[in-house]
């Protein structure tokens, strides 16, 4: 039977842990709010952009223009680049393991292909590093800051690789923020770009030829795609951490309750034992 001192020590230790998980939950909640605001703030641009891309692509198609662009070129998918957006820190429940699991499933599904992995976030980097997979690049500490310039730099590198015929397809795996308790795992094909031109293009005056406009618009598709994944992932990460830390705090409370009950029983038992000893000692004397 553990002694009273041991029990008290354990209760104190669990209480300390609970304080930490509670604090982490509060921090995650505050960061989540900011991350959500950023997701919202980025929405108008991507909405206007998608509409513009559809209009221009539709116009280019109806004009019968030559719309061949390096980023539209479809090749047999022999060399695949996978961009995996994870978090830099752990303690976020199953957030990162869901991502790495999905990535492994994806690798298994496309078994014959030659893979390169671009890791955004420390956890994904570490995962593939331990498995001695080929990493084409790693980007740590960019997700939380969520600056567009970072996303654009990654996109530039990847578009260049695609244009130079070093890779045949680019996929993106990240967590999308659905709600505080739900993240949705997303697997998106970034390149080649699949543009759905709008059916009835509006009657615009095009200062540049639609085909040329399309050429400058397309690289932005990769940039905004990666940027959006980073924003969504940041929001999901904080939400996942918040839920995980909330569960941890509740668990700690349960453990403390159980230990306290046990402590009281042990204390009572020892008091009872002492009384019996005194009483029987007195009886022996009398």
């Amino acid at each position, binding site marked *: 039977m553990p002694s009273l001192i041991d029990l008290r020590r354990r209760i104190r230790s669990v209480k300390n842990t609970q304080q930490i998980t509670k604090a982490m939950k509060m921090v995650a909640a505050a960061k989540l709010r900011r991350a959500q605001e*950023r997701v919202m*703030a*980025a929405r*108008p*641009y*991507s909405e*206007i*952009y998608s*509409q*513009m891309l559809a*209009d*221009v692509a539709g116009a280019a198609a109806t004009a019968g223009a030559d719309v061949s662009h390096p980023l539209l070129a479809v090749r047999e998918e022999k060399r695949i680049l996978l961009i995996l957006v994870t978090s830099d820190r752990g303690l976020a429940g199953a957030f990162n393991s869901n991502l790495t699991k999905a990535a492994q499933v994806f690798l298994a599904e496309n078994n014959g292909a030659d893979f390169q992995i671009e890791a955004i976030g420390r956890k994904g980097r570490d995962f593939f590093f331990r498995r001695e997979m080929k990493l084409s690049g790693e980007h740590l500490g960019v997700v939380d800051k969520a*600056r*567009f310039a970072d*996303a*654009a730099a990654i996109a530039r590198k990847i578009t260049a690789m695609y244009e130079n015929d070093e890779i045949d397809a680019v996929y993106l795996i990240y967590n999308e923020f659905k709600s505080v308790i739900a993240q949705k795992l997303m697997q998106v094909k970034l390149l080649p770009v699949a543009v759905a031109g709008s059916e009835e293009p*509006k*009657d*615009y*005056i*095009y*200062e*540049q030829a639609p085909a040329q*406009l399309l050429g*400058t*618009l397309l690289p932005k598709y990769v*940039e*905004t795609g990666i*940027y959006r994944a980073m924003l969504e992932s940041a929001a999901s990460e904080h939400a996942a951490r918040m839920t995980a830390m909330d569960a941890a705090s509740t668990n700690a409370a349960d453990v403390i309750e159980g230990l306290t009950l046990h402590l009281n029983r042990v204390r009572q038992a020892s008091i009872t034992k002492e009384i019996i000893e005194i009483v029987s000692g007195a009886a022996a004397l009398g």
Partner: protein
Amino acid sequence: MSTFLLEVATPEKLVVRNDASEAQIPGTEGMLGIMPGHAPLISEIDSGELTYTMEGKRHTLAIAKGWVEISSSKVRVLVDSCEAPDEIDVKRAEESLKRANERLLSPKQDLDLARALNAAKRAQARLAVARNK
């Protein structure tokens, strides 16, 4: 007075969503002066100064390159970056202008000409907007 809805968005945020009575946008083929009822148009735009008039007051923004879409009652501007005069870091702009000029004047083999030119233009636009505050 008739107005149109002007929206200026960067990938990070929506900077302007306001009714404006007039706007001037630096298109790559020349300055675009826009009044209410402008014909629908799509154009690329260059780094430079975007000015617009809202409730009789003129506003200036330093923008990086992007696109503009004009439809019946809306003008939507997509740019890489956009700053109001009091947001501009003059020192940083001066430094990046210097850096870009150096790169253009003593070109190395792997010089990305378009990017260096664009960096110079962007810095110039920022400085011009900051000075006319």
